[in-house]
C-alpha cells in the first residue's frame, strides 16, 4: 500500500473559496451569486476583490438560480453558492428548466453536503443531492475529496462550458492531494494499485478509503483505491479496467445508496461486466444532529465500514 500522509486539515469549502477567487482573477467574466451564506461558502474574498461581480441574492434560491441562468445567457460565467440542500432539492425545477435543459454555463457550487454538516441535523444534511443532479441531462456532477482537489476542481469547471454541480463540505479534513494537481473532469485518480478488491470512493470518503487500504494491507489484502471525483460523466474505463483485475467492488460515498456513486457503478457493471459489489452509503434514511465523526460512525460511513465491506465482497467472488 502506497503511503499517504497529511500535515494539515482544512475544509473543502475553503478550497472552493480560494478557487473562486483565483477564477475571478483569471477570467473577468466570472460572476458569483450567494444566497445569504457568504461566510459559510467562503465567498468573502471574491466579494471583497470583485464587489461589482458579486451578487447577494438574499434567502431566495429559486431567484438566484434563474438570475445565474440569465447571466450565463449574456455570456458571463456564474458560480452560485449556498448549502447543498438549497442548491438542489429546493430549486430542482429551476435547475432543470433554466440551467440543465437550457444548457447554461452555470456552476452550482454547494457546501455542507452530507452527514458531516453535523449538528444542524437532517433538514440541512442532504444525502440525496448527487441523485437529483446526476439525473439531469447535461449536468456534470463533481465531488472532490480535499481542500486542494476542491480548489483545482473549481478552476477546472471554469474552463468547462456547460452546467456543473460541484459538491463539497463543511468540516476540516486531511489535505493529502498535491497543491499543484491537474484536475481532469471525468478522469478517475488511482491512489493505490491493487489486485484483490477495487474501492471506488468520492468526497470525504476518499481519505477513509486510504485508511481502510492500510488496514486491509495489514491483513494481507491488496486493495486498489480509486478516487472518483467526477460522478457524472463517470470514468467508465477506469472502473471496468480495475474490476477486470480485481473482480469485486466496494463503493464509498457520503450519500444515500439510492442514486449515488455506487448506483452508477453498479449500473455500469451490470451492463458490461457483472461483479460482486458492496456499497458503503446510507440506506434510505435521513440523518440527525451530532458531531460529524460520530454521525459517520453511526450511519456506517467509517473506515471500518469500508474494511468490512471489502472483506465481505472478496468472499462473494
Amino acid at each position: 500500500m502506497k503511503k499517504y500522509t497529511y500535515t494539515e486539515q482544512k475544509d473543502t469549502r475553503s478550497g472552493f473559496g480560494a478557487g473562486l477567487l483565483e477564477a475571478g482573477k483569471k477570467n473577468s467574466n466570472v460572476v458569483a451569486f450567494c444566497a445569504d451564506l457568504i461566510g459559510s461558502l467562503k465567498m468573502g474574498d471574491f466579494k471583497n476583490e470583485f464587489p461589482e461581480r458579486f451578487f447577494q441574492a438574499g434567502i431566495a434560491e429559486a431567484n438566484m438560480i434563474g438570475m445565474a441562468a440569465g447571466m450565463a445567457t449574456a455570456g458571463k460565467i456564474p458560480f452560485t453558492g449556498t448549502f447543498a440542500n438549497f442548491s438542489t432539492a429546493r430549486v430542482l425545477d429551476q435547475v432543470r428548466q433554466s440551467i440543465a435543459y437550457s444548457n447554461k454555463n452555470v456552476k452550482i457550487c454547494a457546501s455542507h453536503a452530507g452527514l458531516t454538516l453535523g449538528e444542524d441535523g437532517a433538514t440541512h444534511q442532504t444525502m440525496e443531492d448527487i441523485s437529483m443532479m446526476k439525473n439531469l441531462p447535461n449536468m456534470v456532477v463533481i465531488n472532490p475529496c480535499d481542500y486542494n482537489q476542491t480548489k483545482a476542481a473549481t478552476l477546472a469547471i471554469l474552463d468547462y462550458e456547460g452546467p456543473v454541480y460541484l459538491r463539497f463540505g463543511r468540516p476540516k479534513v486531511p489535505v493529502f492531494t498535491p497543491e499543484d494537481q491537474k484536475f481532469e473532469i471525468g478522469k478517475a485518480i488511482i491512489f493505490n494499485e491493487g489486485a484483490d478488491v477495487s474501492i471506488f470512493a468520492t468526497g470525504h470518503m476518499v481519505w477513509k478509503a486510504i485508511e481502510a487500504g492500510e488496514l486491509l494491507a495489514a491483513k494481507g489484502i491488496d486493495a486498489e483505491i480509486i478516487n472518483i471525483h467526477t460522478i457524472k460523466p463517470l470514468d467508465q474505463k477506469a472502473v471496468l479496467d480495475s474490476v477486470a483485475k480485481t473482480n469485486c467492488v466496494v463503493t464509498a460515498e457520503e450519500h444515500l445508496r439510492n442514486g449515488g456513486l455506487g448506483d452508477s457503478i453498479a449500473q455500469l457493471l451490470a451492463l458490461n461486466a457483472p461483479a460482486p459489489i458492496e456499497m458503503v452509503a446510507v440506506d434510505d434514511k435521513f440523518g440527525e444532529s451530532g458531531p460529524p465523526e460520530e454521525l459517520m460512525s453511526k450511519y456506517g460511513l467509517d473506515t471500518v465500514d469500508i474494511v468490512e465491506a471489502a472483506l465481505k465482497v472478496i468472499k462473494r467472488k
Partner: protein
Amino acid sequence: MADINKLQDFASQVRRDILRMVHAVNSGHPGGSLGSTDFVTALYQDILSYDSSNFTMEGKGEDIFYLSNGHISPMWYSILAHSGFFAVSELATFRKIGTRLQGHPTTAEGLEGIRIASGSLGQGLSVAIGHAQAKKLDNDNHIVYTLHGDGELDEGQIWEAVLYAAAKKVDNLIATVDYNKQQIDGPIEEVMSLGDLAAKWKAFGWIVMEMKGNDMADIIKVMAQAKEAAHQGKPIVVLMHTEMGAGVDFMMGTHKWHGVAPNDEQLANALGQLPETLGDY
C-alpha cells in the same frame, strides 16, 4: 412614428398563424396567444432593437425579450418567423416530432430567437434580471423586457424576483403582465385573487404602468413612457389589460380557450374574422 395600421395587419397574420398551428396538431394554447399578440407584435415590429439575421444568445448591444409564460409559444413563433429569425414555412412543424418549435420554447433545438426554455412558470423574471445585470456590467444601455401571465404571478419565485429587482435597482428591466384575469381553472378572482395587483408591485418598489394590451396605439404610447422611465433607479412593470382570445369573437372573455384547439368549423369561422395580410405559411 409607429404605423399603427401596419402593426395591426401584422397582428392579424399572427392570429391566423396561431389558429392554424394549434388546429393542425389539435393542441396548444390559443387563448393567451391571441390576447398577447398585439403587444408582442409591437415589441418586435416597433419597440425592440435587434438583428434577427445574426441571432446570438448574448444579444450584446440589443434589447432582449424573455417570454416567461412559455405556453403561448405559437404567438411568439409566428412573430419571430415574420420578424426574420427563421423561415415562416417552419411554422408548419409546430409540435410535430423532430420540430424546433416545441410545445414550449426551448434552446435545445437551436431555434433562433429563443434564449432559454420556459413553460414551467415563474422563472423568466429571474432570468431577465440576470441578463439585465450582465448588461450593466457590460455598460450596455439596452433594455430587457419580459412577458408574464397573470396566473403565473401565483408562483413564489416571481415575488422573490420582484423583491430583488427593486432592492438592487435593476432599472434596465421592463416586465409586462398579460392581465386577462383568466387562468386554466377559471377566472383569477375565483382561482387565486391577485387583489390590488398594481399596489402590490408598487409596494415592492417598482414603477407601475397600465395599458390597454389589445389597443395598438395605447401599447405604443405606454411602452414609450415605460422606456422613458428606465435607467432611473427602479424596475418597471406594465400591467396590460387584455382579453384572452382577442381577435376571435367566440374565443373572447372566457378561460375555456386557454388550452383547447378549434375544430375545422371553428377554425373557418375564426379565420373569416382575420384578414390574411402577410400570406399564410
